């Protein structure tokens, strides 16, 4: 005879729900890992975290991340930080995969991420990569119409590019013509 008590227990042990909870817990831990070069941003803010899968039986976790730039040296550190965070949280086996496709774009950066960047003093990517202002050369016949980059310090739109390459692969160096501060700007990719 099935008592009400065992019914409740079997509902609570619904394997699908356990798996979702376990995945959600692992995802929260993975999502809190930050970019070593821009420590105010988590890898979730950056759009670098692509997937977290948990195998509840083995207790193993598989995390998939994607690089911002092919040679981004932060990826190795992020991989190590993910393994450490998840191992410390009790997952005995952690695997981190690097996925190149689909290629990362600044469009994946979250709105929260953009606000954090601005407060940190880095201009977030201006406009959308998908809208065609991406990276480069009008030489293939495309006309590049970059949006003005707003100074993260005084919000002025009167800024100019000092160098197309900045302190990391993903940034360019700008200066504000009003407050005269130089600043990093996230490149639209």
């Amino acid at each position, binding site marked *: 005879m099935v008592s009400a008590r065992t019914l409740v227990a079997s509902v609570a042990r619904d394997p699908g729900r356990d798996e979702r909870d376990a995945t959600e817990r692992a995802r929260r831990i993975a999502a809190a890992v930050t970019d070593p070069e821009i420590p105010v941003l988590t890898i979730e803010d950056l759009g670098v975290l692509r997937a977290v899968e948990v195998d509840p039986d083995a207790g193993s976790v598989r995390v998939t991340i994607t690089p911002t730039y092919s040679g981004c040296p932060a990826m190795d550190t992020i991989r190590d930080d993910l393994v*450490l965070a998840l*191992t410390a949280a009790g997952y005995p086996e952690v695997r981190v995969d690097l996925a190149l496709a689909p*290629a990362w774009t600044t469009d994946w950066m979250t709105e929260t991420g953009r606000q954090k960047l601005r407060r940190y003093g880095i201009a977030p990517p201006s406009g959308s990569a998908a809208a065609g202002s991406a990276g480069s050369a009008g030489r293939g016949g495309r006309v590049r119409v970059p949006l003005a980059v707003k100074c993260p310090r005084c919000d002025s739109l009167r800024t100019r590019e000092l160098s197309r390459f900045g302190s990391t692969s993903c940034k360019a160096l700008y200066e504000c013509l009003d407050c005269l501060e130089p600043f990093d700007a996230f490149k639209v990719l």
Partner: protein
Amino acid sequence: MTEPAMTEPAVTEPAVTEPAVTVDEVRLGEEFTGGAAGAVASDETAEYALRLADDALILAQRLGAWITRAPELEEDVALANIALDLLGHARSLLHYAGTASGRTEDDLAYWRDEPAWRNAWLFEQPNGDFAVTIARQLVASAYLGALYPALTASTDATLAAIAAKAGKEVAYHLDHAAHWTLRLGDGTDESRRRMTVALSDLWPYVDELFRDDALVDRLAEAGIAVRPSTLRSAFDRAVGDVLAEAGLEVPEGFVAAGGGRDGRHTEHLGPLLAEMQVLARAHPGASW
């Protein structure tokens, strides 16, 4: 329940809230480079990937030598960033090439001698003065800028993924080279003279980039590779436009023999490899 007296040390001595785990204690053995997980290249695809990888790695190594020596600080940063992108392409490609023979990216980068390298001659040419480096960047980026977008249509998912990532970055490199070509070509008499000399010195190495051979013919038939010859018109257009705008002429002259794809190299590759490989060979398996 703990007594108040018992909790006091915990305040001064930070409680260990999570087990301390260090990188050394966890397994970080696997190579961490992109591409479809578990994809294994065929021998011929691996050979093709090695050509692309070696072009990128040798050019990255050359550009790295500019750090602290460029004409201005911004150029140190720019050339280092470009080198880093190329190194990223090389790592992904080397990793994939290595899957065919069970070798790691480090095996391939540090333990191959000169005849085993598959890069074209252009990439191993010395840095020269800044004009030579810019001319080499213009040629290399225009070639790679035509190649990678075409390679995104490859039937090989790993090559297509690497190409999609690399294509966006190389377009930015071409922009950099084009800007400098305009400044040097349209700058002072001296900068124009140097840019003209640089272009004519490097032009003999252009043809090799666009040579087909039996390997790429077979791979192109299978939709895996891009025939280099099909990229020539896009390259000529891209470079021709920049040179015309800079008031420079497309050089004419002799064509170098080439042979990098078969492991025949100029005298410049050996010293480059010696410098690049010495540390890894002196301390095999070392990590930091």
